[in-house]
């Protein structure tokens, strides 16, 4: 059997979004790999550099303990590790994480302890770029790059706000002439202008503050606008990022207001930022590790799935695998959506109130939707996991879908059958009334005219005519009654059976009667069972019993037959009665008990 290629797509509650191909774009992946490897290499180198600088930087009057050093270096290391994990697990934000880690290492490069001028210069230029990159990461986190132009603009603005003063300062600052004799040369120096450099530095602090606040604002807006499901997922990363940016903002504010005197405050805050960035790295990795662990845990269950569990049990199996008891499976058919037993249900893909739930569409090999899984945000949001589950469950899903479709069609047929019977009865009732109101009235009027004529002109022909018309009237009455007894519609089953008894030529005893009016389909079918049995079978006498209990109306006609022919020919269920009773969901039984013929119908009535 050819392996089935299932493509799983996800929707965010407002319709199906992207369909991710299993055989994805290979070139894209290679580019990512290359970029990732380069970044990792760069970040590691940066780490080393940072370590060197920080270690040597103890010569400055910037008191720092080993702990602070470890934290700051540790933040870079944590981010790199998280980035590697994300890269290996094919997360789209992996490069961003690595970027933040690399940028964080550059913070310390504009330092007297920098080993060479290049490192020093790069530190001057890019030392603060970690801030907008962190904001970008936070905005981009949650399964995709920034979706909105506004977010992109915010990031771009932040980058510009951070880089512009840094660049300006870099081209005008000569560390030697500014008093830092141990600093290496500034390769980017164009014009030595200490005042401009200082102003650029001040502007940098202010712009840093404003862009931090702007990034936090955008983050908050994104968070608030996200669906409750999304919020859960991004809260950790967004929160830690916001804290790091916020602490940096406080640092900028301190520098802007207090100038160089803010240095100790700034140092402490920098330690806090490092801790927050470690938090970001942990948050990013934690989700990835958790998904991987869950996948490992579920590997055995997934293999169980491919052995096609029974209907209803498929849902339980999938719920166990995805750790989501609220999971529901629905099957979109050509004209409706049904559940596993064929009942019609609303389409879960239509946007609904409950935004905590997501619909994942499993698409079959021919591109049509096979089944829709509705679940809470969780393991099924992971692309790899979702594809694995979809592949394993494909056989079982198809199987259950076929059964559901069958059940749905059968239910359609039953409904149609019952409606046919009802429309048949209504038609007969209508005919009876038409006969009664129309033909019978007219014949009576005719009789009247004939008698009037007779009164004026005695004529034997007229007498004969009157007699004939009288017979015709009797026939009409019989016909109308045979079509549909008026008593049945007006007063119900009990009255109709009484009329039947009155007009019968055998003794009939009626025991029991329904205590209330029932639906026309049930009353008519019950009546027809009795009338047709009495008409078709020659009995010497009959007992008709009617009882209603537990939502079932039970009608029994029994009696000793008048001759052996009465027992003959029950193959068609007493003249089609079986079909009629079955059409409204009831059952018919024919018994011969102690020389008595018994026909019993049980009809469901609510």
């Amino acid at each position, binding site marked *: 059997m050819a392996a089935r290629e299932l493509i799983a797509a996800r929707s965010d509650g407002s319709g199906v979004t992207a369909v991710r191909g299993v055989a994805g774009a290979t070139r894209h992946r290679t580019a990512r790999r290359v970029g990732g490897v380069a970044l990792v290499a760069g970040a590691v180198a940066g780490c080393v550099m940072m370590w060197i600088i920080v270690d040597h930087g103890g010569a400055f009057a910037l008191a720092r303990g080993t702990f602070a050093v470890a934290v700051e270096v540790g933040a870079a290391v944590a981010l790199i590790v998280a980035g590697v994990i994300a890269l290996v697990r094919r997360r789209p934000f992996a490069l961003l994480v690595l970027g933040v880690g690399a940028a964080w290492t550059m913070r310390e490069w504009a330092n007297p302890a920098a080993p060479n001028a290049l490192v020093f210069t790069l530190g001057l230029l890019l030392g603060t770029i970690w801030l907008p990159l962190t904001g970008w990461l936070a905005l981009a986190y949650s399964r995709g790059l920034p979706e909105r132009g506004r977010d992109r603009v915010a990031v771009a603005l932040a980058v510009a706000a951070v880089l512009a003063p840094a660049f300006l300062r870099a081209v005008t600052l000569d560390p030697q002439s500014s008093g830092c004799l141990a600093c290496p040369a500034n390769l980017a120096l164009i014009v030595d202008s200490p005042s401009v450099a200082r102003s650029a530095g001040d502007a940098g602090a202010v712009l840093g503050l404003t862009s931090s606040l702007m990034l936090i604002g955008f983050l908050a807006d994104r968070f608030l606008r996200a669906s409750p499901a999304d919020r859960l997922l991004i809260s950790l990363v967004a929160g830690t990022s916001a804290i790091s940016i916020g602490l940096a903002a406080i640092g900028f504010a301190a520098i802007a207001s207090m100038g160089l005197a803010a240095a100790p405050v700034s140092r402490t805050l920098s330690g806090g930022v490092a801790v927050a960035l470690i938090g970001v790295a942990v948050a990013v990795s934690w989700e990835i590790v958790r998904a991987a662990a869950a996948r490992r845990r579920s590997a055995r269950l997934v293999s169980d799935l491919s052995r096609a569990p029974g209907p209803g049990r498929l849902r339980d199996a999938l719920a166990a695998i995805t750790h989501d008891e609220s999971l529901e499976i629905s099957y979109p058919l050509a004209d409706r959506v049904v559940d596993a037993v064929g009942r019609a249900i609303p389409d879960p893909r239509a946007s609904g109130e409950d935004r905590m739930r997501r619909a994942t569409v499993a698409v079959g090999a021919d591109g049509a939707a096979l089944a829709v899984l509705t679940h809470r945000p969780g393991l099924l949001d992971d692309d790899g996991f979702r594809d694995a589950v979809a592949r394993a469950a494909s056989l079982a899903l198809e199987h259950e879908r076929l059964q559901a479709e069958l059940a749905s069609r059968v239910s359609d047929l039953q409904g149609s059958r019952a409606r046919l019977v009802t429309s048949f009865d209504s038609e007969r009732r209508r005919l009876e009334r038409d006969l*009664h*109101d129309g033909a019978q009235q007219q014949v009576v009027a005719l009789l*009247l005219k004939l*008698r009037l004529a007779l009164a004026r002109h005695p004529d034997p022909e007229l007498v004969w005519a009157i007699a004939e018309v009288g017979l015709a009237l009797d026939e009409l009455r019989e016909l109308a009654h045979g079509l549909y007894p008026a008593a049945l519609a007006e007063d119900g089953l009990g009255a109709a059976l*009484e009329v039947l008894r009155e*007009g019968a030529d055998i003794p009939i005893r009626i025991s029991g009667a329904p205590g209330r009016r029932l639906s026309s389909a049930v009353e008519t079918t019950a009546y027809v069972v009795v009338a047709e049995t009495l008409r078709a079978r020659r009995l010497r006498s009959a007992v008709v019993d009617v009882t209603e209990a537990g939502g079932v109306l039970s009608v029994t006609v029994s009696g000793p037959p008048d001759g052996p022919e009465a027992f003959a020919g029950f193959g068609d269920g007493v003249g089609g009665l079986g079909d009629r009773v079955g059409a409204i969901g009831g059952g018919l039984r024919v018994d011969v008990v102690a020389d008595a013929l018994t026909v019993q119908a049980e009809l469901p009535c609510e």
Partner: protein
Amino acid sequence: MRIVIADDEMLLREGVARLLIDAGIEVVGTAGDGAELERLADAHHPDVAIVDIRMPPTFTDEGLLATRRLRAAHPGIGVLVLSHYLDSRYAVELLGSFPGGAGYLLKDRVSDVAVLTDALARLAAGECVVDPTIVARLMSRPTREELPLSAREREVLALIAEGRSNAAICAALFLSPKTVEAHVSHVFAKLELDDSPEDHRRVLATLRYLRSDR
């Protein structure tokens, strides 16, 4: 005798009116529905109303309901209900709610002047009328065919069920009043019915007995 006729079929009520007028009976008005009937009755105070059992709006048993309202407004009025239906349900219901002066005839009968005028006269006098076809049908039921009655007694029973007074039975069977009374007592005794004086109660008791299978 003054009559009103209520029937939603115009041909019929005009025809019956002419029939009665030809027979010398005064028809003070014809109505097409229950409301019109009541208006006519209030205006002209007839002796008997001929009412079709089926009238607008539902065409089921408006006639019966109209007769009750009529009786409530005009206590002495006689009511003759016409119907297409052979079964005795409505007859029993009608007689059960009227203390005399109520009758039930099949629609076919209206063209028979003799039957009609006889029925109207009896109703005006406060007696009951039940269509003989209905009685005959009841009496020909298998359980009623084997009653412990002689042929003559069966004839008497049928006439009682039709609402006839003892005097009418005498005339119909050419018997003396004493003989008729004796037959009536025997019948009621054998069937274990309460022997009421000749009024609607004995008709009702008889009809009920005939409908049952005791």
